[in-house]
């Protein structure tokens, strides 16, 4: 019997409620103002390729007025405000984000290409939760750090990446405000829209002008922010290369810094793991957000005696993933964020092929228009392959096998990165053994890619330093 092939009809999320202006200015001192640069750049949808809006580009003068506004707001208003009043504003932002969750989710998927299922169920609610969580800390800092007399720093310059635009903005802004700092935030140039929507929300919440300033631009804008003398603290999430440039730039100053950089996480499956659930975790680990995740489980290590069955089950599971329109509620994997990123991923597919690795891609189709990449496996990979050593930042998983626990620990640590790792085993003792030996900031056991505002996040080695989230996420914005 052939059976019945059940295709899911398109289920697109409506986008008529998502209000976008054709042109966005710089959000400085509580108002949208024209850029001194007089320049605007376009932001596109990576799925439909249509132009969504024009966004003002900030030059050094614009950066200066944003930082000046932040400094004034810090000195005149925010520093003096009782902490419980500060916390009310942060709560208010969280609530309005929840009220506008649908609109934020739709714009996030339009501008960034991620599936609506993720922006709706993960990005937006988690972003709101960060504001809720840190709002609660604002008037309790003396209890968070007893006898240490925590004090705010001043102006925080925050530069965020394109993979979780709104969530990263929340990760950065919420703890900075709770600890009494003011903010100049620069979203990534390919995904500026949800941060600008957040600027509108901040305006609606009557946050005192200048406490949060949101400006857009490219590398030069970020460099001007980092170099500005009135900036007291830099928080950067992005590539390791840029992280190194920033650190060089601030050498000799007393600016505080946190860096959350690249990763190439080991996801380790032992023969005593719950195999079907591990396969699900492998899928979530690498194909979540098209693999545009710094903590993605991009290096799979499977114990040799279960490798065959794990790889077979993984391939079968991948065949059920739906790649397509980010706004369709059934889409599992959306569009690659930009042409530049797609080219980079494709170049790594070539490198892997040239290295002689077995390549597996799913048989389903991908849309002819837009930037898409099929979920991909490189089977039979080794430590010496470039696709194993370098961060691809796409839906590409390398699979290596191992024989013993010592071997896999050594291989997992044999990489310049150290952001995250995953361990799959039914044995609790094995989990504790590994978590103490893996050099990674976050280690998940029998799950992957779990995030919570209460939980600190950050890296080892070239994955950066400093922690975001949780009580630990307050410290980088304070002096003691």
């Amino acid at each position, binding site marked *: 019997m*052939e059976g019945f*092939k*059940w295709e899911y009809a398109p289920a697109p999320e409506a986008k008529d409620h998502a209000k976008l202006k054709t042109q966005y200015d710089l959000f400085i001192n509580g108002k949208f103002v024209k850029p001194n640069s007089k320049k605007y750049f376009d932001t596109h949808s990576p799925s439909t390729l249509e132009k969504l809006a024009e966004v003002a580009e900030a030059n050094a003068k614009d950066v200066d007025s944003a930082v000046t506004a932040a400094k004034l707001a810090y000195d005149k208003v925010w520093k003096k405000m009782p902490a419980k009043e500060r916390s009310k504003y942060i709560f208010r932002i969280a609530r309005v984000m929840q009220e506008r969750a649908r609109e934020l989710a739709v714009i996030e998927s339009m501008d960034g290409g991620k599936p609506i299922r993720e922006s709706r*169920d993960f990005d937006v609610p988690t972003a709101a939760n960060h504001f809720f969580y840190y709002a609660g800390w604002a008037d309790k800092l003396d209890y968070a750090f007893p006898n240490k007399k925590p004090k705010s720093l001043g102006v925080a310059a925050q530069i965020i990446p394109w993979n979780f635009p709104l969530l990263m903005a929340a990760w950065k802004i919420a703890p900075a405000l709770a600890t009494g700092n003011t903010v100049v935030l620069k979203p990534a140039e390919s995904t500026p829209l949800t941060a600008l929507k957040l600027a509108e929300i901040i305006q609606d919440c009557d946050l005192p002008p200048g406490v949060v300033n949101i400006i857009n631009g490219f590398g030069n804008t970020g460099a001007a922010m980092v170099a500005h003398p009135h900036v007291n603290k830099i928080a950067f999430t992005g590539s390791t290369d840029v992280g190194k440039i920033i650190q060089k730039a601030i050498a000799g100053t007393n600016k505080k810094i946190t860096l959350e950089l690249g990763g190439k996480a080991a996801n380790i499956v032992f023969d005593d793991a719950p*195999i079907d659930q591990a396969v*699900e975790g492998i899928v979530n680990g690498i194909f979540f957000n098209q693999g545009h995740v710094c903590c993605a489980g991009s290096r799979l290590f499977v114990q040799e005696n279960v490798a065959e069955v794990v790889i077979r089950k993984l391939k079968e599971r991948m065949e059920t993933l739906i790649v397509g329109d980010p706004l369709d*509620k059934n889409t599992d994997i959306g569009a690659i964020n930009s042409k530049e990123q797609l080219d980079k991923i494709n170049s790594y597919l070539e490198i892997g092929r040239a290295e002689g690795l077995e390549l597996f891609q799913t048989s389903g189709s991908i849309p002819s228009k837009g930037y898409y990449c099929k979920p991909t496996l490189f089977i039979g990979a080794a430590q010496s392959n470039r696709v194993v050593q370098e961060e691809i930042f796409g839906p590409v998983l390398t699979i290596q096998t191992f024989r013993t626990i010592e071997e896999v620990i050594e291989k997992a640590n044999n990489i310049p990165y150290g952001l995250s790792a995953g361990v799959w085993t039914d044995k609790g003792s094995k989990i504790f053994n590994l978590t103490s030996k893996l050099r990674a900031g976050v280690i998940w056991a029998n799950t992957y890619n779990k995030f919570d505002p209460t939980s600190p996040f950050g890296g080892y080695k070239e994955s950066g330093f400093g922690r975001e989230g949780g009580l630990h996420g307050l410290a980088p914005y304070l002096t003691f």
Partner: protein
Amino acid sequence: MDPFKSVIIDQVGIEERIARFNSRSIKKQSKIQGLKLALNMIDLTTLEGKDTEGKVIQLCQKALHVADNIPNLPTVAAVCVYPTHVATAKQILKNSGVKIASVATAFPSGNSSLQIKLEDTKIAVDNGADEIDMVISRGEFLEGNYNFVFDEINAVKNACGAARLKVILETGELSTLDNVRKASDIAIAAGADFIKTSTGKIQPAATMPVTLVMLLAIKDHYQKTGKMVGMKPAGGISTAKSALQYLVMLNETLGPKWMNNEWFRFGASSLANDIILQLGKEQQGAYYSKDYISID
């Protein structure tokens, strides 16, 4: 396959997978296809102490005429009754294509001797049952007497003759998903044609996590042997929406080969009417009164 080698199940992982199935949005044509398929997979069931000939006849009529006012509607898969009512059902259903399933083996507790269980099975088969729904001995299973459970299923299978055997694990009494997996493996190895979650007499009855664990057992068996085994969640599935969620899970776990009533059934009594209500809404664009839907 060694049925006593445990496959490890992680409950949290199973629940996350279920959440993912339930986030699928089934609309328009795919919804109508799914609803019709679900209707066609129903084992319309009456298993009460107060069952009478009259009640069974009425249920069989319902099976033959689910909703004649809606064109191109499939029939249900089967009617499920106690062995003593099989003959009555046979009279009505005859050659209609609707199968007759009968519970047997001292349903629902299964606490009786093998001799009586085999006799119970024989009565149902002799009266014309196409399918036998047996219960496993949960007490023996929980005591660790897996060989006993295996042998009993195997003996009942032999007594079934041409009738297909559905093995009820009564997962609500097995407590853990690890146990559900182990019982599934034993039942499949002992010759089950179908594995089934529940009697409907114990809460919780069918749940999606339990059903997923059983589907994965079926999948592993198919991978190893090439032999298909059917799945029947029973009890507690009463809405069309929930039936569609089960079908999504089936579709993405076992795939098209299982997407028919030869290999998947819903044990339910009120599900059919909710499906009819939803199908009517899809066709007319609005809900109509439940008074238009027969209740037997």
